[in-house]
């Protein structure tokens, strides 16, 4: 496996794939590396697409993971605008959409996830967008001029960040959510309430418990979102952010073990020892919880890129990380770590009304997850305490007079 000259082919040139290629070179891999991407541009960071980039605070250069010349200089064959159609694991080859067949020694699947489509009438109208790629973001940014009306379908992070950016650009925004609260799948109720209030105070409208029945249009362009009951919310552009299923079809067709994502071990290796899977497409072990899960985050993509690159180059595996992520909305820095499995108490530290607080999810005296709003110490200490599986005192954790340094001591 650690043959120095083995040829590594990476399918998917996103954050995970691009990072794996660069790390393989950094770790001394001398053999050929081919990085194949469906999008027409070199690997770039996606998180800013709904944040700084959308607001015009970051340019294309700053989004790029590496400068254009990096790939040629380091001997990484970057093949763009090409899709991988099939993996032939027994032959160690892949078939490409341009008709070519490519051999591999080691394959890394980093095909990510795709925006879930809305299965309702009108979803194909112009102006109905999703937000996964730079091209999506370009289209959304062009539509968000002052006075334009954005309808966000789905009150998740992407939708909320886009709504915040829309307000910063002078556009109107309404967020439509099927559940009684936003962020229902990914955050606790305290956070949902905080962000709902924060957005409302900045002019964002909410339609909760609302089911979208159809998108209405004129001359092929979206003009409104129709809810069950018949009410129509007029809009100039609609952003659909209702989740992202994994692009694991080629892996599944090749016989790799898939269970809502490609199943991998702690080295990011699939059920085929010569095939790795990293990033949003993988279903991975979570060491600190003795469980497996599919994560969708940059931190996960980078951790697994490190795992795969280490395994391929014969390095010791990197430490197991606690999953974490962040979201920027207006001036709020929201950071969260861990996953609230088996939680018996939700403990609030600080005061949401003051705009600085953290919510700890506890199982007995162990922290399982932390959600921190403008509270970096709580986030950092919480993440470390989750990793260490170290018992804490609930009363000290709840007391802001006791610093997080002292709680963690």
């Amino acid at each position, binding site marked *: 496996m650690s043959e120095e000259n083995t040829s590594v082919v990476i399918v998917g040139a996103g954050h995970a794939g691009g990072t794996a290629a660069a790390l393989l070179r950094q770790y001394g891999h001398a053999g050929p590396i081919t990085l194949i991407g469906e999008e027409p541009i070199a690997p770039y960071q996606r*998180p800013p697409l709904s944040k700084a980039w959308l607001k015009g605070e970051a340019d294309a250069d700053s989004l790029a993971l590496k400068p254009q010349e990096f790939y040629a200089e380091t001997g990484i064959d970057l093949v763009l605008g090409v899709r991988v159609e099939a993996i032939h694991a027994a032959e160690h080859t892949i078939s490409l959409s341009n008709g070519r067949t490519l051999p591999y020694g080691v394959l890394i699947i980093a095909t990510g996830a795709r925006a879930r489509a809305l299965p309702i009438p009108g979803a194909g109208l112009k102006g109905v967008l999703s937000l996964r790629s730079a091209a999506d973001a370009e289209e959304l940014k062009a539509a968000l001029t002052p006075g334009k009306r954005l309808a966000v379908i789905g009150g998740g992070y992407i939708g909320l960040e886009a709504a915040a950016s829309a307000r910063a650009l002078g556009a109107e925004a309404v967020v439509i959510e099927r559940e009684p609260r936003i962020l229902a799948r990914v955050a606790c109720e305290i956070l949902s309430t905080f962000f709902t209030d924060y957005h409302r105070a900045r002019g964002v409208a909410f339609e909760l418990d609302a089911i979208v029945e159809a998108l209405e249009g004129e001359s092929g362009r979206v003009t409104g979102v129709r809810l069950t009951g018949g009410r129509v919310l007029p809009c100039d552009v609609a952003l659909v952010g209702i989740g992202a299923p994994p692009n694991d079809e080629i892996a599944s067709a090749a016989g790799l073990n898939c269970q809502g994502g490609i199943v991998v071990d702690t080295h990011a290796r699939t059920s085929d020892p010569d095939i790795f899977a990293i990033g949003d497409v993988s279903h991975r072990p979570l060491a600190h919880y003795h469980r497996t899960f599919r994560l969708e985050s940059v931190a996960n993509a980078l951790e697994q890129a490190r795992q795969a690159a280490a395994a391929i180059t014969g390095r010791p595996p990197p430490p197991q990380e606690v999953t974490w992520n962040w979201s920027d909305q207006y001036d709020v*820095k929201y950071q969260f770590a861990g996953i609230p499995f088996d939680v018996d108490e939700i403990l609030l530290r600080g005061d949401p009304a003051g705009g600085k607080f953290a919510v700890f999810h506890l199982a007995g005296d162990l922290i399982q997850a932390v959600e921190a709003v403008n509270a970096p110490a709580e986030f950092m200490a919480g993440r470390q305490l989750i990793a260490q599986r170290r018992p804490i005192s609930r009363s000290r954790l709840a007391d802001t007079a006791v610093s997080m340094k002292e709680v963690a001591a």
Partner: protein
Amino acid sequence: MPKITYIEHNGSEHVIDVKNGLSVMEGAVKNNIPGIDADCGGACACATCHVYVDAAWADKVGAKSAMEESMLDFAENVEATSRLSCQIKVTEQLDGLIVRMPESQH
């Protein structure tokens, strides 16, 4: 273009021309310099771009924000000259800056 010297924990030196306006972190990451991970891409959300600023430059790189200070409080092996390199913007005044990387960012 300002030159910045990045010194890995094992002593390997990399002298890089970094464009004005980029961060010290971006200068390293875009040039594939080992030792700075920068998982969040510069949002001051992760503390994986920790560096030690050479003592002679400590005053010239500006002050830490409260956010950066809190994040650094919980990073590994923090010293008085520790900074998050995503929070240091490169200017002509930083031509010659030297930063050292910690053993690990995780």
